[in-house]
Structure formats: C-alpha cells, structure tokens
C-alpha cells in the first residue's frame, strides 16, 4: 500500500532544495534550576522547501517546546539556553519583538492540537481570516475577501462564501482545523509548524487534514514541521523524521529508513509498543520497561540509559554517546555507544 508520501513508490530526494529553517544546537533550560538537565538538549535539524519533517516523541521529549521555540513563544518558566534558530537568514533567537511579530503568521505559521481553543470564539470565520491578513499587509477589503475565499477553497473548506459568517462553535472539529490551517497559510508562509494537529480529531477527519497538509507543503513549497506521537500518522505525512527522548534527538533520517530499520533502542521500543493494524495478541506489544524521566531529571550522557533493554554493562557509560550512520542511507543516523552490537541485532531481525 503506498502512503501519501510516495505516490508512485519512490523515495523523493529533496536534498537539493533550499533550506528554509536551520536549527543548531538548540538548548532549552528550566528557569531557576541550574542543575536540571535541559528540557531540550542540543537539537539540530534543517527543513527544506517542499519537505515535511516529523518530530516524534512522548511526554517530556521536548517536541512541543521545540516547536514553540521556533517562534520564540516559550512559556514562562523556561528559556533558550544555547543554540540558534535561523529562518531564511534571520536568527530568531536574536530578533527583537517587532521583527518576530512580523515573522509570525507571515513567514512562519503554526497550527495547534486543539482547533477549538486556537480560534477566537467571538469572531466569525471571515473576521478571523481578515484579522490575520490585515496584521501583515495593507490590503483592501475586496482583496481580503478574495484572498479569504481563495485560501478557504485551497484548504477544502466547503461553501466558503456561505460560511464566512459562521462562528467556530458552529463548526465541527475538522472544519475548525481547516479554518486554523487557512489562517496559518493565508499570508503564504514559508514555514509551517503543526503541533499534533490531528490528535484530537476523528480518524476519518484526520485523513483529510493530513492529505491537505501534505498537498499544501508540496504545492506551495513550504517547509513543514509535523510534531506527533503517533508513528502511523508520521509514516503518512513526513518525509524525514527525528525521534526525541527526554530532550535529545536519538535517531533521525528518512521516514522509510527510521521506521523500517530502527536502530536506536528507544525507537525500536516505541515501534514495538505501538499497536498497528498488524498487531495481534500472538505477537504481543513489548512496552519499554520503566518510566519516562521527570522534567529536568534525565540521566546525563545518554538519556535512555536507565531503560535501555539493549544496554551492555561497561560500554554504556556516563560519557556522551556518538553518532552512528547507516551505510545504505547516509541521512539515517542514531546516537549510541556500540555500533557493532546493534548492527548484528538488526541483521538477525531482518533474516527472521
């Protein structure tokens, strides 16, 4: 079965496309707790135009906080400790408030998990869109209307002209999310951040939203960052994926590579514990032993060491783990200590 990503079964290489967003060594710390481990620790990735990068993680992985950091919208209690975020040449961590305000909504946009909470309930759909359009350009009323109808049609919103006067509470969850996406895309951003946009939607609605995001990313040549905990959704929508655990990136690469040949024990554990359409009781789920570390209390060095089922005594030390690369796919790499053991494990698995 072909997924949305590969309409004709080929892995599309986007390596030659322009880099729109570059994050380097991003570290986010808790305020007032200098001894705590960073909540996001040295996050590094690029997003190119026309590509969708998936960020996968559970609670405490830092995935949502990272996406907020990209817009410099961190909540009270945390701050960026180190690293840089460069969006089309501009360093977000160094930008002043005015520049940031100009960028948000026009250069970089974001959609959130709960569309009901993201839309102002006292504004109609038409007003919501005109608010966003007026905030970033001086366009006339007729142009606002034209653009609003245009973008609503592009996001598959049914009967746009008739529904401009609807309020969010009159719309279903799926339609609200489409409005939120329309607002995010109205000013033709280059970068779109989607933080669990389909998690609170029904599965039949989810499919349409994922298709929409996918299509707009390709057609408008946007760089999309898609945060999710659901591996199935990521497989549908992301070209590349980074797996985060307790603030660290533990594995990254093409979605195809990471999900079919997971190398990091956490990635393997995640895949083994998520039920998919081929799981049965004969092949039981294998949950990762132990619990996620508390915020700010991850072990130093490899954050996963306390729970790693493939941990070998002696070699998993308090030192920093290093990157290992997949010889077949050069973009696929993972953070560990011992390469040979993992490689032999994967060989024995694929030969079963």
């Amino acid at each position, binding site marked *: 079965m072909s997924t949305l990503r590969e309409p004709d079964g080929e892995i599309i290489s986007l390596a030659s496309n322009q880099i729109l967003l570059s994050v380097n060594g991003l570290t986010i710390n808790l305020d007032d707790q200098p001894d705590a481990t960073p909540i996001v620790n040295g996050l590094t990735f690029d997003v190119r135009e026309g590509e969708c990068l998936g960020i996968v993680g559970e609670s405490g992985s830092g995935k949502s906080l990272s996406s907020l950091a990209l817009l410099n919208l961190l909540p009270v209690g945390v701050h960026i400790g180190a690293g840089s975020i460069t969006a089309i040449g501009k360093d977000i961590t160094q930008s002043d408030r005015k520049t940031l305000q100009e960028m948000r909504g026009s250069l970089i946009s974001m959609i959130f998990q709960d569309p009901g909470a993201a839309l102002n309930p006292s504004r109609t759909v038409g007003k919501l869109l005109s608010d966003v359009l007026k905030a970033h350009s001086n366009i006339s009323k007729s142009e606002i209307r034209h653009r609003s109808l245009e973008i609503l049609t592009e996001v598959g919103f049914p009967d746009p002209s008739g529904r401009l006067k609807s309020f969010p509470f009159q719309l279903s969850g799926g339609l609200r999310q489409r409005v939120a996406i329309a607002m995010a895309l109205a000013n033709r951003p280059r970068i779109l951040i989607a933080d669990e946009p389909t998690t609170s939607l029904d*599965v039949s609605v*989810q*499919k349409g939203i994922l298709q929409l995001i996918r299509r707009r990313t390709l057609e408008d040549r946007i760089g999309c960052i898609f945060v999710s905990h659901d591996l*199935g959704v990521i497989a549908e929508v992301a070209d590349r994926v980074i797996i985060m655990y307790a603030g660290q990136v533990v594995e990254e690469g093409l979605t195809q590579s990471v*999900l*079919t040949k997971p190398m990091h024990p956490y990635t393997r554990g995640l895949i083994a*514990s998520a039920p998919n359409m081929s*799981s049965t009781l004969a092949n039981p*789920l294998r949950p*990762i032993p132990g619990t996620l570390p508390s915020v700010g209390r991850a072990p130093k060095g490899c954050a996963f060491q306390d729970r790693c089922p493939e941990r070998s005594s002696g070699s998993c030390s308090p030192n920093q783990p290093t990157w290992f690369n997949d010889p077949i796919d050069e973009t696929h790499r993972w953070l560990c200590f011992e390469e040979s053991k993992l490689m032999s494990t994967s060989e024995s698995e694929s030969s079963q």
Partner: protein
Amino acid sequence: MKLLIEAQGIIKQFRGRGRSLDVMALSGIDFSIMPGEVVGIVGESGSGKSTLSRILVGIERASQGTIHHDGNLVTSVEEWKKLRRDVQYIFQDPYLSLAPHMTVGQSIGDGLEIRGEGSPAEQRSKVEEALTMVGLKPADADSYPAVFSGGQRQRISLARALVLNPKMMICDEIVSGLDVSVQAQILNLLVDLHQSHGVGLVFVSHDLRVVKYLCERIIVMHRGQIVESNDTKTLFSDPQHEYTRHLLECVPVGLSVGE
C-alpha cells in the same frame, strides 16, 4: 451460559435547550455481553459509545429500553447494586477519577468498606494485593493520587475495580490520553488480567488499532446506532458495512519493521 448483561432497545435522548434540537445519542441499541469475553466498542465522536458504556453500568439512565443482569431486569437501586458487584467501570481521565483528598488505599478500599467484607486488616491486605496485581507497590496505598503519573493512576483505578472481584470491567477510552509506551503497559496488563483471572472486558475506544489488538469481538457504532458487529478477524478481513470499510481505510497504516 447466561448472558452477563443484556441491553435491549436502548434509546437515549438529550433534550435540546432553548432553540437547539433534541439529540438522539442512542437510537435503539441491542447489545449483550457474555461472562469472560473481551468486547470492543469502536466509534468516532458522536457515535454514542461512551453514553452506552455509562448506561450499561447505570451512571446514566436510558430514556427507553431495558437492561437485564443474569437474566433479571434491572430497575431498582438494589438491582443496580447487584449488577455492580459483577461489573465495574474505569474512567477515561486519570486526573479526575480519583478523589484528591483520599489516599490511594482509601480510594481502592472504600468499596470493600461499604460492603463490609472482612475486617479492616483483611481489607487492607486485599488492597495491597490489588496494587500488586496492577504492577504497583503495596506501600503506594498510603500515598495521595497527586504523586502518581497518568498511567499509574489508571492502574490505581484498575485496582479499585479489581479489589471487588468483578466478572467484567468496562473501560471507557482508558488509554487515550497516555503516552504510547505507557499505553502498551496498560494494555498488556489488561491482557494479563483477562488471561490469569478471567476478567471480561468491554473496551470502548476510537482507536481501531488498539481494539484490534485487544478484543475478540467488536461492535462498530456510528451516530447512535450499531452498524456492524462481528468477531475481530472477520470484521477486519471482510467488513460488511460501508461505514466500517470507510473507518478501516482512514486508519493510518504505518510502516512495519523490515518492510
């Protein structure tokens, strides 16, 4: 074997306020459960699956229809009490289902205290046994819910149900808000409880993947009606109803290791 619970002709209507129309949450449901089986109820929002699960245990009353327990019609408070000896319920939100001012041991053991089963010492040991069964420590009985995570709280809720020795537990979206790895732990715990203690399950969920993994039999609900009911294997390999087929198509397939 007698049916454990038999629900017939269940209708649930919510009166509209002011200008809103009445809502038919359930329009004529027939549903029965045998002791010891694992049934899944699957549906999207508005399907009525949660309403049905609440009606089965009596925390919501049907507008019309009957519930039979072990062949007896359930209407009075006494009869509901009897039903609840056999059927327990686990709620979705782990942060709202435990009284914040009661210790874990008090929450779990209150049912025993109400029934007057055994001396306080015996009740305490049953509570500790239940905690061990769900993978927690007996000493946790003296802690308050605030120190536990979502997954642990769901275990506590399971312990509260198990300590009363039910024949069946109705689980309403109990893993929906939990992390994937925690979800897997709870699901495996349920499987274990079923296999080693014979506890039946009614598992309500919107996630077809989880229901496929766990349940022997599945009913699919849509807009207040049961559209399909079959054993798991057949439902997935040969879905009959159009809505079931549509639902199956929309589930993200994912990639398998080694693909």
